[in-house]
């Protein structure tokens, strides 16, 4: 059962119930602000703490201690006066802080004095030859099944890519009795040297010891091939084999399932559609919103917290959520801010949580050949546009992603660029000898998630329409 929001206006509307959103909503409500938390999933937790209130996995060790931190966040949210609605898909937010949300097939509109976006991250596209074949999926999708249904792969499984989440997923699959035949590590060898100057900070971060033991745990059970420089999937209508090059040697192995992952990037669609200014982050290789120290964006009243503000991980997300909420409280009810932790305390918490991030970003910066495809490799899945198609369009005058739409319809399908946007930007930048910042990104518009015509048709008439009818 999905219920409609109780009010039309709120002091604070938080969008997304991951670590940042949970923390922000609890903080704002504790300070006495009328607070609405809208979340797309069936329960709280976002991706990191997915199914935290409902997972069938009961052995805490299998998902790791970090996962269960989410339970405390949910606890404090439930103890607060925040109104929480799940299965709520926000499909529009504009610069007037008007929010359209779909709830069980019907849309409602609410207005906020402040909006805190906590829409988290998406997995970075991994456009290798064959990545659209059935049998190839993202590691994140596999982890979703694992957390919500305790489902693990049992066929011949290859995991390819890099980054902390890859190792976490591998460990979780193994602990739950799943099968992994081989891990293909695509981390560039040069990255180890580049990351070295940042290693000290990382050694003192909480991620270090945990990361190291997890990698040891996985490597004891699975053959790990490092230094993979080429990767492709093939099969006739279904994945049959994975081919790779490591140390100059090519090898092809049969596989039923290939899980791909090369890090996560901010989920910017809602923020961009609201008109929030974004900038290309050259280290994280993605678009990040331009924010002040409190998470405030270029649109008055909209703040962004969590990985949507730039990838920082779950611990940083929680603190960013508290900072954004505290800033909202300071603006709307300054007297109530006194009962919240001081901003200085929160900032030092954030610095601690972000320690080691540069090391991770540098070490796990994906290699160009895995970000920028060539030839017949699909770039845009919705419209089946290849890298060559994009380059051909550039040759006859397409200058950026928005112009490209006129030539190839890239980004105009149901995913609205989520699966191709970064690839298109980087591919066009490379082809035109420009920076991604100069090339730009798709202009995103609402609905940020599709809604049915029937649902839109059922939207209550505007006040002006109603008045006209009454008078008529």
């Amino acid at each position, binding site marked *: 059962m999905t219920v409609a929001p109780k009010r039309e206006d709120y002091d604070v509307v938080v969008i997304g119930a991951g670590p940042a959103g949970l923390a922000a909503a609890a903080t704002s409500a504790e300070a006495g602000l009328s607070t609405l938390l809208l979340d797309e999933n069936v329960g709280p937790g976002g991706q990191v703490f997915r199914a935290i209130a409902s997972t069938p996995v009961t052995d805490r060790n299998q998902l790791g201690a970090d996962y269960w931190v989410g339970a405390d966040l949910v606890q404090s949210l439930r103890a607060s006066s925040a109104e929480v609605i799940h299965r709520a898909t926000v499909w529009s937010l504009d610069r007037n802080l008007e929010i359209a949300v779909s709830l069980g097939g019907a849309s409602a509109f609410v207005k906020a004095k402040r909006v805190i976006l906590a829409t988290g991250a998406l997995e970075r596209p991994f456009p290798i030859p064959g990545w659209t074949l059935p049998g190839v999926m993202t590691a994140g999708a596999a982890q979703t099944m694992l957390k919500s249904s305790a489902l693990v792969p049992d066929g011949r499984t290859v995991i390819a890519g890099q980054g902390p989440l890859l190792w976490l997923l591998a460990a979780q699959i193994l602990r739950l009795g799943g099968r992994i035949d081989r891990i293909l590590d695509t981390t560039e060898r040069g990255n180890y040297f580049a990351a070295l100057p940042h290693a000290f900070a990382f050694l003192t971060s909480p991620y270090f010891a945990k990361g190291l033991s997890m990698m040891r745990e996985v490597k004891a059970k699975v053959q790990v091939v490092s230094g993979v420089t080429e990767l492709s999937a093939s099969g006739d209508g279904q994945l049959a084999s994975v081919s790779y090059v490591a140390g100059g040697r090519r090898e092809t192995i049969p596989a039923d399932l290939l899980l791909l992952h090369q890090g996560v990037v901010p989920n910017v669609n809602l923020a961009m559609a609201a008109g929030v200014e974004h900038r290309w982050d050259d280290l994280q290789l993605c678009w990040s919103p331009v924010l002040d120290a409190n998470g405030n964006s270029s649109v008055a009243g909209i703040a962004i917290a969590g990985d949507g503000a730039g990838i920082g991980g779950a611990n940083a997300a929680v603190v960013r959520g508290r900072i954004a909420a505290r800033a909202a409280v300071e603006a709307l009810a300054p007297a109530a801010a006194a009962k919240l932790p001081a901003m200085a305390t929160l900032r030092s918490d954030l610095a601690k949580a972000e320690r080691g991030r540069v090391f991770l970003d540098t070490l796990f910066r994906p290699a160009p050949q895995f970000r920028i495809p060539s030839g017949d490799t699909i770039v845009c899945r919705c419209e089946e546009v290849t890298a060559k198609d994009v380059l051909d369009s550039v040759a006859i005058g397409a200058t*950026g992603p*928005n112009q490209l739409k006129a030539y190839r319809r890239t980004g105009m399908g*149901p995913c609205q660029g989520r699966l191709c946007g970064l690839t298109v930007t980087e591919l066009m930048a490379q082809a035109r000898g420009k920076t991604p910042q100069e090339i730009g990104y798709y202009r995103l518009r*609402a609905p940020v998630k599709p809604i049915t*015509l*029937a649902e839109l048709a059922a939207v209550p008439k505007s006040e002006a329409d109603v008045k006209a009818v009454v008078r008529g």
Partner: protein
Amino acid sequence: MTTNVDAIVVGGGIHGCSTALHLCLAGLKPVLIEKDYAGRHASGVNAGGVRQLARHIPEIPLSIRSMGIWEKISELVDDDCSFESYGQVLVAENEDELAVCRARVAELNALGFTHEELIDAAELRRLVPAVAQTCPGGVVSRRDGAANPAQTTTAFRRKAEHLGATVREGLAASNIRHRDGLWHVDVGPEIFAAPVLVNAAGAWAGKIAADLGEPVPVETVAPMLMITSRVPHFIDPVVILRGRKLSFKQFKNGTVLIGGGHLATPYQDRNETVLDWKSLATSARTVFELFPVMRSATIVRAWAGIEAKMKDDIPVFGPSSRHKGLYHQFGFSLHGFQLGPGAGAVMAELIVNGGSQTRISDLGIDRFHPSTLQG
């Protein structure tokens, strides 16, 4: 440094691009100046209707001239612009509306225009099988159709450049002034000078005209459109309604474009619009009632393009009433896309020959200002 050219065209919409292209065909070397990129605003994001149907009488000659060019668009711009011609149908939802249609067609016939044709319920059903059974008829313009607006504007820009036009995108034309018999315009660090200046700056054209002493009653508007997911093919012509704000078009790939002129709030200085979902819901309701097949389709995207709308809904087209060498081509009031190819051709004739066979006399800026030009 000043670069001398034959003409300066301000605005890279379909109109500016078409005029630049036709000036090139006439042997001139124009510069085309666009503050964003060609087709960034209304010209690239409109509904793509190629429509003679239901036009204001003063612009019908220009529309017919344009239609002839649309039918050979590939020859002109080396690109089919995804132009297709399945006609446009105006649907009357009741007998009263059909009576208005009948009177309109009679009026056009009396003026010698035959492109609009009254149709009965049977012919309406043949053309648009999916329309609600209660509609008694309407009007069809059979040569009409639709094209891809961004593809079209881009093609005109590309061909103009290919034929020798200088194109400057990403920098606004500024400091427009007339000195020593020439128009001068700054574009970033560059200065262009020419005997001819064409003001085709769309939503930004009214300010240019006003700054040059020719203010006109114009406002900036942003008509909204939305597009659906793919649905099985069920309709060929573009459909518009007589009584309600709706236009409707299914593309080859199955997606359906829903428009009709409900307005977003434009933020012109930021190149931004804020959509009005409650108005879009009105469009959705109309489609829901008229085309049951559409009910389960999803809305994938909605948007609005910024453009100029005249108080009298008729464009400003032709020579300035105050300055020699200045020409206006703006204020197309939500229906300028189809006119683009023809308007560029006629504008080039006005500039090069001093006149055109196509009747445009009711569109001049002199309807707001008595001419002060000396013969």
